[in-house]
């Protein structure tokens, strides 16, 4: 006998079970979403250590906010809304700290010099983009979220979500093209 179709998705169902006190469901959710979250934060922060810390913070928030999740909403949009709030808090905290250690110390290491150059070029280009435009682009390209999900995650309209992605590309494209 086949499993009934779950709406909206398996992760949403797992979060509902988490809200009911099912710790095993939360562990499955962590196993499913830890790496996508980590990749999102790493590209946003240029720091693996900070990315892992924000993964912990986001998933902790998710655990305590599990009861607030509405099953009719797409889970990725809900997760990345929580993640973005953590990211913004992190940026605000960083702004109050000296900027010397933010970038150069934490830049991800690449094995060869050629790869490192490309990594630095793309990281620099991504840094030129405003947070909301960068997040929209990351959710679209890296996480594969639909425009509707991006709009919900960023709490903006559908057309605004498309415009944010387009704006990010407009900034990145000439920077990348000029140096590749």
């Amino acid at each position, binding site marked *: 006998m086949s499993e009934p179709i779950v709406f909206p998705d398996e992760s949403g169902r797992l979060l509902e079970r988490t809200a009911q006190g099912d710790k095993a469901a939360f*562990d499955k959710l*962590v*196993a499913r979403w*830890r*790496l996508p979250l*980590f*990749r999102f934060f*790493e*590209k946003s922060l240029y720091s*693996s250590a900070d*990315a*892992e810390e924000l*993964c*912990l*913070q986001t*998933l*902790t928030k998710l*655990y*305590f906010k599990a009861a607030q999740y509405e099953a009719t909403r797409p889970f990725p949009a809900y997760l990345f809304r929580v993640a973005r709030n953590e990211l913004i808090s992190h940026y605000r905290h960083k702004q109050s700290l000296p900027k010397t250690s933010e970038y150069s110390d934490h830049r*991800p*290491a*690449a094995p060869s010099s050629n790869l490192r150059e*490309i*990594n630095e070029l*793309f990281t620099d*280009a991504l840094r030129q983009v405003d947070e909301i435009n960068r997040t929209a*682009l*990351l959710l679209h*390209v*890296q996480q594969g979220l639909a425009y509707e999900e991006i709009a919900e995650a960023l709490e903006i309209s559908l057309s605004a979500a498309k415009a944010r992605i387009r704006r990010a*590309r407009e900034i*990145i*494209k000439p920077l*990348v*093209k000029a140096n*590749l």
Partner: protein
Amino acid sequence: MKDPKQNQRKAPATEVFDQWLREDAANPPSDLQSFQERLSARIAGTAPQQRQPERKPWGRRALAVAASLIFLAIIPMLFFAKPNPEEPQPPHVVESSPPLNEEIYLIADLFEGFDQALLSDLTELLETL
């Protein structure tokens, strides 16, 4: 219409960049088991902190209620307060002003080429009024 050659040149840069966005993290995170252990510890450590705000707001609530009461008491006083007739009122000060025709000449001085005939007509008109 866009130049197809231009599109051909643009595509690779965008594709390479998108591929870079999608690729795995350069520095992989810690293994899942240790991550879950840290997360469980974080959750266990965060839970009591989250209960604290339930106790704290009583002070803030009391302050907010007091502020609201003061505000509600002040508002009617501002709107419905009448002046006490027994209190001496400040005397009205009437400032002396120059005659009207003088004002017209003063204004006329500001504008070069003001018609003198029109000016005198205006003065006469004002005097009759």
